C-alpha cells in the first residue's frame, strides 16, 4: 500500500470526477490495468487507470454511486489516498482498424487505450455512450482529438440530448456493417458488453472487453471476483474473445456478490 497525495480533482461532468495523483509504479500501467484505491476509514475499491502523464502523474476516473465513490469524489487536493497495483492484464494492442466502445465511466480505461493506440498510429473509431449529455465522460478530450484528426468519435445518448439517439451497440453495429473493423475494444455496463460480444461473434470480429466484479485481494488469491474459471483481478480484467466465449454463460447474466452468492448481473 502506497499512500499518496491527491494533486488535482477534475469534474468530467456533474457525476464523474478524475482524480490525479503522483505514484511512480502507476506510471507503468498498461491500458486496462487497475489499481485498488484506499479511501482511509471508508473502503478500498478497484478503479481503472484513466491516464498517465510524462510529468509523473496518473489518474482514476470515478462516478459517485456508492459510499466509497461518493467519499472519493468529494476529496480535495492534498487529501491522502492509498494505492495498490497496477494489477491484472490490460488490453492487447493489435494492429489494424480499432473500434473502441465505452459506456459511462467504462470510458476510463479506454481513454488510456485510445492514447496508446494514437501513439501506435492506429486507425481508431470511438463510440462513447451515456444516458444523457450531462453523463458523457471525456466529451471535450475526445472531441479535441477528433478535431486534430487523431480519431473519429461518435457520441450516443439514450434520450438523444447529444450525438446519436440510442445505444452504443446500435451505432457500433452500423459502423461494423459499413466499414472494416479488425478489433473491438469495450468497457462499460456488462449488458452492453454482452450485446457487443454477440455482435462481434456474428461478424467474426476479435473483441477484448474489460469486466468488473466485486474484488478484495486483487492478487488472484481470494477468489471473490471469479467469473467461470477466471479471476477478473488476475486473469482479466480484460478478457480476449476466446475467453469471453468460455464465460458466455456468465457474461451479462450471473455474478457473485460479496457473500459468494450467485446473483443476476
Amino acid at each position, binding site marked *: *500500500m502506497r499512500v499518496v497525495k491527491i494533486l488535482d480533482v477534475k469534474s468530467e461532468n456533474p457525476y464523474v470526477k478524475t482524480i490525479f495523483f503522483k505514484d511512480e509504479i502507476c506510471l507503468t500501467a498498461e491500458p486496462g490495468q487497475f489499481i485498488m484505491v484506499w479511501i*482511509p476509514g471508508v473502503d*478500498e475499491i478497484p478503479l481503472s487507470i484513466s491516464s498517465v502523464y510524462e510529468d509523473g502523474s496518473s489518474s482514476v476516473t470515478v462516478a459517485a454511486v456508492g459510499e466509497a465513490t461518493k467519499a472519493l469524489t468529494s476529496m480535495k487536493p492534498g487529501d491522502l489516498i492509498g494505492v495498490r497495483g497496477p494489477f491484472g492484464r490490460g488490453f492487447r494492442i493489435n494492429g489494424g482498424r480499432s473500434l473502441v466502445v465505452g459506456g459511462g465511466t467504462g470510458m476510463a480505461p479506454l481513454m488510456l487505450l485510445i492514447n496508446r493506440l494514437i501513439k501506435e498510429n492506429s486507425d481508431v473509431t470511438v463510440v462513447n455512450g451515456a444516458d444523457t449529455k450531462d453523463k458523457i465522460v471525456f466529451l471535450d478530450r475526445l472531441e479535441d482529438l477528433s478535431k486534430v484528426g487523431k480519431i473519429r468519435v461518435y457520441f450516443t445518448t439514450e434520450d438523444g440530448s447529444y450525438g446519436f439517439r440510442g445505444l452504443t451497440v446500435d451505432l457500433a453495429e452500423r459502423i461494423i456493417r459499413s466499414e472494416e473493423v479488425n478489433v473491438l475494444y469495450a468497457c462499460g455496463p456488462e449488458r452492453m458488453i454482452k450485446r457487443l460480444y454477440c455482435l462481434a461473434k456474428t461478424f467474426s470480429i476479435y473483441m477484448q472487453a474489460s469486466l468488473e466484479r466485486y474484488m*478484495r485481494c486483487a492478487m488472484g*488469491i481470494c*477468489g471473490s471476483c471469479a467469473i467461470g*474459471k477466471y*479471476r477478473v483481478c488476475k486473469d482479466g480484467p480484460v478478457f480476449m474473445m476466446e475467453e469471453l466465449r468460455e464465460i458466455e454463460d456468465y457474461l451479462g447474466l450471473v455474478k457473485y456478490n460479496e457473500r*459468494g452468492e450467485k446473483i443476476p448481473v
Partner: protein
Amino acid sequence: MYLLLYVPYGGVMKEIVNLFGAIDLSVRLAGLFMPNPTMLASGILGMSAETLRRVAEAGAGAVVTKSVGLRASSGYPNPTVIQVECGFLNAVGLPNPGIHKFVEEIKALKDLGIPVIVSVFGFSPKEYAEVAGLAADAGASAIELNLSCPHVKGTGAEIGQNPRMVKMTVEAVKGSVSKPVFAKLTPNTSDIVGLAEAAASAGADAVTAINTIRAMAIDVETFRPILANRVGGLSGPAIKPIALRCVYEIYEAVSVPIIGCGGIMGWRDAVEFILAGASAVQIGSAVAFGGLSIFKSINMGLAEYLARKGFRSVSEIVGLAHKK
C-alpha cells in the same frame, strides 16, 4: 511402495514418472487418496466449483474450500488483503453464502478426481457439526474444521485456542459425519501441541498446522491501521519457520497425520514440512506470487528430490528430521 495406480490429471504425474522412474508422489491421508501431497489451502480461490476445478487441473492433490458457515455472511469491508514484507495480511471476515447454498458448489465437484475437503466454521460445537453434516451429505470427501481464523468473533481461533472447546467441537463433528475430520489449528497460542492433542484425543483424523498469525499494519501518513478490521492474519514466507516448528512439535506428540501449512513457496519448503512430520502440505499465499503453476512445480521438485536422495515415495521421508 509401488507406482501410481490412479492418474486423474495425468499430465503432471506422467511427466514425473518419465523423468524420474518409479517415484510415487501419492499420499494416503486419513483414508483419502491424493495423487500428490499438495493441497490448496482454505480461503484461497475456494468459493466456486469452477475455480476449484481449475486448481485441480493445475495439479493439486486435493482442494480445501473457503470456510463456510451456517448462514451467509458478507465478511469485512476492504481493505481485507494487503501485501506486507514477506507475506500477506488478511482480515476477510469469513464471507460465505452459507452451507445451504454452498452445497451446490460441493455437488458440482463430484467428478473432480481428487479429494474435496470442505472447510467449516460455526459459533458453537453444535453449529460446526450441523454445517459439517450438510457438507458431508453434499459429497465432501472430508471436513476441515476452521478452529483458527484469527479475526472473527465467536468462532475460529476464539474456539480453537481453548483445548476443551477443540475437543468438544471435534467430538460433536465426529458424531455427526462419517467422513474424515481434520482440525486446522491456530498458532496464536502458547501451546499448539496441547491443541493438537485435544483434537487427536477427540477423534480428529488429521490436524492441519497452521492458520495465519494475528498481525497488523499501520499507515504512518494517515495514522490508521490499514485493514478495515484493524487486525488480521499474516501468511506467506514470514511465517514458514514458525509453522515448521509447530509441525515438528506436533509430530512428536500425536500419532494422527499432520497437514503442514504456512509460507510454502516451493518444493524445498514442502520437503522441509514433510521432514518435520507433515504427510501433506497446503499452499495458499504462493498462488499470488507464483500463480497456479506452483502445484506442478512443487511436485516436480519433490519428485526430483526424492529421486536424488534415493527414495521412491513421499511416505519414506515423513518425519525424517526426527531421527536421532
